[in-house]
């Protein structure tokens, strides 16, 4: 993820070079151009890809709606009526609602704080002049290359010193602001917010923080929405660190799911019902706001 905004600059360059070499001829439709619509093969292929993306989820629901013996009786073709019973079993064997609540809290808090702090820093890097800003930004980008996973042992030691192991703080605090977020917002605000606007507000006597609040934040809204969505999803699906630092009695959803497998290894209908249950909330978010995420990924890659 962290690399997205860097990519297309180079692609853009190559493309521009190519355009310079070959450009300037007559207009005719090419792939993706304004011209002819693609035919059956394209839609057929994309339909197959879509089915492939959906199938594992559907399969999960299919098995999750039968009882434990279903697979030994052959491949199920239509959903059975056992999903609610399996769901009840899931809730009996793991603290499902607590895990759902935890995931909701962690993801929401993280999303808001990443957006706020990243926009704040992005505003400073993009629009304010201060000594060393260039190098500090380079440093921020460089930190993206440091795999945070590798610091888990000391991070765990730090967290247990603070007495935070087992609590949600241990998951939330390291994620409060990300290098990717800072970089992403810097890139966006640089283009989206005219300098004149800040000057105007400043001339009117607004302090820096007011300028940020009244001009910076509103201008950054589209990028902030994408960042919030992405952070929410990434936090929701995160496993390694919560798995290490959280107590099994107070898990997030992925941690709880993994516990479910340990308890119900043979009863796959229950395990997969749990997988479905844990995916539904995020799927809803995606259906409602996924357009934003998709256009964000696309935009991030095109912008330099």
């Amino acid at each position, binding site marked *: 993820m962290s690399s997205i905004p860097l990519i297309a600059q180079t*692609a853009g360059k190559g493309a521009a070079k190519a355009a310079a070499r070959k450009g300037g001829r007559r207009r005719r439709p*090419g792939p993706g151009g304004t011209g002819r619509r693609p035919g059956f093969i*394209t839609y057929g292929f994309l339909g197959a890809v879509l089915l492939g993306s959906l199938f594992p989820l559907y399969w999960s629901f299919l098995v999750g709606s039968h009882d434990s013996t279903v697979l030994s009786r052959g491949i199920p073709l239509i959903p059975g009526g056992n999903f609610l019973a399996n769901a009840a079993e899931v809730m009996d064997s793991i603290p499902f609602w607590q895990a759902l609540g935890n995931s909701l809290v962690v993801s929401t808090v993280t999303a808001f704080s990443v957006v706020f702090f990243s926009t704040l*820093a992005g505003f400073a890097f993009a629009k304010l002049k201060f000594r060393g800003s260039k190098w500090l930004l380079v440093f921020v980008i460089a930190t993206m290359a440091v795999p945070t996973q590798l610091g888990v042992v000391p991070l765990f030691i730090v967290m247990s010193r603070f007495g935070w192991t087992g609590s949600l703080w241990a998951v939330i605090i390291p994620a409060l602001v990300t290098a990717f977020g800072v970089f992403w917002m810097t890139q966006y605000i640089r283009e989206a917010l005219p300098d004149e606007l800040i000057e105007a507000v400043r001339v009117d006597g607004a302090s820096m923080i007011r300028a940020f609040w009244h001009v910076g934040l509103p201008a950054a809204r589209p990028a902030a929405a994408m960042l919030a969505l992405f952070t929410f999803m990434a936090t929701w699906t995160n496993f390694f660190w919560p798995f290490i630092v959280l107590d099994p009695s107070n898990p997030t959803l992925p941690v709880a799911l993994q516990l479910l497998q340990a308890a119900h290894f043979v009863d796959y209908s229950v395990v997969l019902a749990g997988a479905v249950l844990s995916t539904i909330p995020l799927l809803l978010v995606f259906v409602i706001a996924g357009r934003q995420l998709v256009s964000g990924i696309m935009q991030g890659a095109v912008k330099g």
Partner: protein
Amino acid sequence: MAITDRGLKPAPPRRPPESRRVRRIAFSHRLSHWDVKFSPYLYISPFFLLFAITGLFPLGYTAWVSIHNWNLIGGQGEFTGLENYSFVLSQPFFWNAVGNTFSIFLLSSVPQVVAALVIAAFLDANLRAKTFWRMGVLIPFVVAPVAVGLIFNNLFADQFGLVNEILRFLGFEGIRWHSDATASHVAIATMVNFRWTGYNTLIFLAAMQAIPRDVYESAAIDGAGRLRQFFSLTVPMLRPTVIFVVITSTIGGLQIFDEPRVFDQYGLGGSDRQWQTLTMYIWELGWGQRNFGRASAVAWLLFLIIVLIAVLNFFITRRIANQGGAK
């Protein structure tokens, strides 16, 4: 606000006595000066503070822990120098994990990049309901890796798994996905590919849309078919993007943990550690055997491997980029 004020009140109201006014202006000036000078640092400080505590410090501290005897419960023990490193490096489990990590990484990143390129090329057409298709390919991204692991663990079940049922239906033997090393790597790589192909597709698609359309037009005039256009135009022009996707998936792929961890219920990577990866090995040493010193040593070794690959990638990238320029 103030602009309209000025417009409304052409004659300024009674002013305070000269001396007080000057002092106040001076003070507010200074305040504003401080504001300009220091608030940028204030705004960027949350990131740097947090990174110092949760990123930079742990990285250095890992090195410190790795040269000590260090127990999860007992804490810091005596200084041991590089003993943890030599111990780990002499362990067959370590090298097994290195091999598994690279095998899974290669099996996942190569087909993934190829598939993403092809799907992106199809998405790059003048489609009806563009957003629908784009969102469609991204759906796997909302499934948590743990859930993906559980689902595919079932699909690749040795006994009643769907994949083996299909293989048997087609007249092949069922494959022992959970005991054969290579087979388990294929299964785990499939999970990674499932989740990330769509995401990479969108990155490629964005880069493709930055290619000017008249390049294709002239190619079409020269008589190049769609396939020829894809291989001779699209792919070469996307080279930088391809390399970037490869680099990021390298960094992610070398740290893989979630999917192999839930591929069976024990989480050690199979009865013979057929699919234990380096990150799983760190977990086993640190939280299974409670030996933080050795876990940290492996963490540093993994970090070195990643840096090494990144540098290698960088030089290959430069090389290819230069060739692209010379062409």
